């Protein structure tokens, strides 16, 4: 066991941290958030040049030989700057599935920065159940016709391809009978309703009405999409756990600074012991969150799906709950200023709040963890 970064990993962490502190000041982010697309293609190009898009992929997939730990390193640093660029949907979720489905051609474009992806895994009535798929794919002329509704597809509007789980067999909640499809941008019958989310990123509602696809649009095998999807979401969980850890780290630092600077009763707020202790509690949670996130990033690569699931659900359940406390305390300790749109801390709070919901909230993952038998000692 070794939680330490390798030299390459240190370099990666440093280079992303440098970008965030130099090229991602909060005012610039504010402008990006309000822009048409909501993020910057120019930044994306730099990510490609710096190798961050290739970082989490194996060399035989055109990557740099990294994996989920590299993704976590990028995401933790992105969390500190609330980076808006769609690394999670395109690289972690979409890229991960392209690799799993053996689509080296598309991966090549992805690592070069020439491809955007969205994974439309949410169904309006599914809540957090990945097997609940009502969207149907009927066989038609050697291909398929897709019909159904997908909700909250992150990066949907920018995506060149939307990955859509659809049912090719079985009942609405069966794990078997789900197939993953690559739906090209602008496909006839595909309608998007894009919007901004409360935490500042972009998503879309996706309607499919008889979208006609060929057999080559299937990612992986027909009827066997669920295991791929679940593994991709688990990698997504490891990645957002790292993002959450980065956010918490940032919140700890800015709240500490605020308490030291803001004066009431002629003294800095930091001189009140009740606030000192609460700031320390928040710091402790943030340290543990970082440990949980990297633990999940290592174990998400486990061969056994159950080991993988246990580790990411443990992290997600723990971080979801801790994130609530960290965010709430940060706003409280900022007083009225914490309530404002102007103060960056409110944006960190909102993202942290929504990360609890993303991929299933702390209740869902606590239950998934328990259902898998809880913690299992291995030797």
């Amino acid at each position, binding site marked *: 066991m070794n939680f330490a970064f390798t030299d390459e990993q240190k370099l990666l962490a440093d280079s992303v941290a440098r970008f965030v502190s130099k090229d991602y000041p909060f005012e610039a982010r504010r402008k990006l958030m309000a822009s048409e697309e909501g993020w910057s293609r120019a930044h994306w190009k730099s990510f490609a040049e710096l190798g961050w898009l290739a970082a989490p992929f194996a060399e035989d997939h055109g990557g740099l030989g990294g994996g989920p730990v590299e993704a976590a390193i990028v995401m933790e640093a992105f969390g500190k700057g609330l980076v808006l660029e769609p690394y999670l949907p395109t690289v972690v979720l979409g890229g991960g599935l392209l690799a799993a489905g053996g689509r080296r051609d598309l991966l090549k474009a992805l690592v070069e920065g020439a491809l955007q992806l969205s994974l439309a895994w949410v169904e309006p009535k599914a809540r957090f159940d990945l097997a609940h798929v009502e969207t149907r794919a009927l066989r038609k002329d050697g291909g398929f016709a897709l019909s159904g509704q997908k909700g909250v597809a992150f990066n949907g509007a920018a995506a060149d391809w939307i990955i859509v789980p659809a049912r090719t067999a079985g009942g609405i909640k069966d794990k078997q009978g789900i197939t993953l499809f690559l739906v090209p941008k602008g496909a006839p019958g595909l309608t998007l309703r894009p919007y901004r989310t409360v935490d500042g990123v972009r998503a879309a509602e996706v309607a499919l009405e008889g979208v006609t696809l060929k057999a080559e649009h299937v990612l992986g095998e027909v009827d066997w999409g669920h295991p791929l999807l679940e593994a991709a979401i688990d990698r997504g969980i490891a990645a957002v756990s790292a993002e959450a850890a980065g956010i918490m780290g940032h919140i700890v630092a800015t709240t500490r600074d605020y308490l030291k600077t803001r004066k009431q009763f002629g003294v800095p707020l930091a001189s009140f012991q009740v606030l000192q202790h609460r700031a320390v509690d928040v710091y402790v949670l943030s340290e543990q969150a970082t440990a949980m996130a990297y633990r999940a990033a290592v174990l998400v690569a486990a061969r056994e799906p159950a080991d993988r699931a246990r580790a990411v659900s443990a992290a997600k359940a723990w971080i979801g709950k801790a994130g609530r406390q960290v965010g709430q305390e940060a706003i409280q300790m900022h007083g009225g200023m914490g*309530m404002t749109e102007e103060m960056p801390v409110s944006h960190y709070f909102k993202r942290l709040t929504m990360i609890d919901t993303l991929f299933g909230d702390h209740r869902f993952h606590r239950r998934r963890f328990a259902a898998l038998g809880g913690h299992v000692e291995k030797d």
Partner: protein
Amino acid sequence: MNLDLSPELRAFRDEVRAFIKAELPADIRDKVRKGLQLERDDYVRWQKILYKKGWIAPNWPKEYGGPGWTPMQRYIFDEEVGKSGAPRVIPFGLVMVAPVIMKFGTEAQKREHLPKILSSEVWWCQGYSEPGAGSDLAGLKTRALREGDHYTVNGQKTWTTLAQYADWIFCLVRTDPAAKKQEGISFLLIDMKSPGVTVKPIVTMDGGAEVNEVFFDNVKVPVTNLVGPENQGWTVAKYLLGHERTNIADIGRAKHQLARVKEIAAAERADGGSLLEDEDFRDRIAEVELDLIALEATLLRIVAAETGGRAPGAEASLIKIKGSELQQQLTELLIEAVGYYGFPYNRDAMEHGWNEPPIGPDYAAPLAPAYFNTRKTTIYGGSNEVQRGILAKFVMGF
């Protein structure tokens, strides 16, 4: 000890209920239920309905136009109004400045202001906090310099709730900069239309703009607008803060929110059933319900003491702490209930009359913003840390 309502109180409750049912305009009820944005006119319309009935000012003595209710009747009335989904009565005039004017004001001030507060003709806002004076309110710097028959006011207030709607503002201002902090403060009524008053909205993290900065640039205020003696404003302010805090519990509204949580959880799907049938979620609702019951019982004990003639003291702080936390827990349940459909940000959908199809379920749009916005309840009205400080000092004797 007896927890049943007497037949008289029961009849009173039924009368209140029937009145609200008949008189609360349907569009306003609908907005409150759905958590949509209320306009100035919505509040005023409803307040005028209560005014006509003689029920707008339960906390006022009869001689000024109050209904002359017992503490228990007032409690019942507040609860019924909150539960019914009526808008809250804007407290700045009726609950805050009016009792101050009654206690400390001149006859002329009473004649001038009280009737217009009662009839909701005039909208008031509260000008206490400043950028440098939040928890440390006595650190305020807005300066009022006496020049003959008027004061010249310069400075800035902030976080002023709904100042954009206000006709008048009551302010704490510094009249003697040389005196000790608390001793150089005065309580001043200022017409918002006076030259030199500027209101600038502050956007809160939920995207709303209910608070403002209010700037005073050489604003001339007649000396007759001073309430209480000059430099005695701190005594006046403390009297008012007691009134502000008891008003914050809002049990009725909490019950209304709880019903909303259950309604939405029943509509949300989870694991083949509804979210309301989900054991874990149901337990969490029950936990919050227990907090509600505990708060209600505590409040009723305070009401009983009040009926016995004892004025509420430090208990007001207890109620403020638990009431504000309860409101936060309820909005937290709502954001949890709605799952992924907490994500879409659609401020337009929170305006009445927006009639595009909703994104996700029709109840979803206001829920995340409501959770964000409700973080304020533990900050304003004297933050919960400040309230704990009061209890530590006055109850524990630390």
